[in-house]
């Protein structure tokens, strides 16, 4: 079945899976997992260079930047100003206008501060950024982000790193219906079926980090996620059957032996 290409702000991606670069046991394992995932976009964080210890290898030595598009994030920012400042630094370091915008509202849940997120989106869009905001699974917040000029909306499935899977299936479905920009389910995926479910609900893509990096075998999990996203997408395009309360026989009810 032919699919429409996965396009965000005019840029086409081969894979609908976007993967992170954090929490891996080594850069080498990360590179292998990236390869297995089939992803062509990876997220990175923007942090101070370690001045006293310059011996550490650079993350970018392990990312094939010819194949992978780099999406800097503003993880760890708790105000619109911090996120805007970090986005500007990320643009300089990466030489692209794209940012995964995070403005966190609470330390324990890492839930977004929607008000600050919308404010930061407004500012960054005016500065020419392609803003991909990580947001609550809230259709109204997503609509406001889209109105502010976000290039995609990225509702969470569950708290970052929780692996709980999609907690509010119906909201994700509603956000898909409301949004004219791509919807990417970002955060909360624990295993392959969670990613497949996101795609079956109509997500245009799935973004994950911990589910792969934290698995016992990250490279195998990356491969599983690759298949799950493809399977879920195909199922969405194929159009699933409605759910029914009672059985409906698959074999003919006529012609039974001895009746």
């Amino acid at each position, binding site marked *: 079945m032919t699919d429409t290409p996965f396009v965000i702000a005019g840029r086409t991606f081969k894979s609908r899976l976007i993967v992170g670069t*954090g929490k891996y046991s080594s850069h080498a394992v990360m590179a292998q997992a990236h390869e297995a995932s089939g992803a062509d976009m990876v997220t*990175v964080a*923007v942090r101070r260079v370690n001045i006293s210890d310059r011996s550490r290898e650079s993350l970018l030595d392990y990312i094939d930047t010819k194949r992978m598009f780099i999406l800097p994030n503003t993880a760890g920012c708790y105000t619109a100003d911090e996120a805007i*400042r970090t986005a500007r630094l990320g643009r*300089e370091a990466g030489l692209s206008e794209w940012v995964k915008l995070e403005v966190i509202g609470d330390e324990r849940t890492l839930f977004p501060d929607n008000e600050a997120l919308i404010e930061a989106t407004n500012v960054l869009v005016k500065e020419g950024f392609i803003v991909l905001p990580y947001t609550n699974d809230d259709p109204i917040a997503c609509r406001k982000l889209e109105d502010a000029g976000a290039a995609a909306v990225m509702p969470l499935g569950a708290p970052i790193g929780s692996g709980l899977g999609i907690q509010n299936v119906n909201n994700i479905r509603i956000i898909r219906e409301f949004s004219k920009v791509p919807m990417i389910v970002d955060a909360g995926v624990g295993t392959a079926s969670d990613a497949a479910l996101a795609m079956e609900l109509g997500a245009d893509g799935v973004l994950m980090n911990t589910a792969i990096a934290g698995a016992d075998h990250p490279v195998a999990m990356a491969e599983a996620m690759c298949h799950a996203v493809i399977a879920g997408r195909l199922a969405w395009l194929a159009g699933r059957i409605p759910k029914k309360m009672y059985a409906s026989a698959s074999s003919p009810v006529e012609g039974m032996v001895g009746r």
Partner: protein
Amino acid sequence: MEITLNGERFELEQPLSVTALLARLDIDPRRVAVEHNQDIVKRHRFPDVVVGDGDTVEIVNFVGGG
């Protein structure tokens, strides 16, 4: 003279351009972004922007994240 570099106090003998500061710190200028007194320094301006006494400099790069 003293500057604040990535939140820490840092001694310099004399004012330096951003290019010279990065070279002294053994940092590849192609992989970092620099803020000077809270203003972004565009890469092509690294040779021209001079860091002097009391200035605040932030040098960031990409690390693993989700």
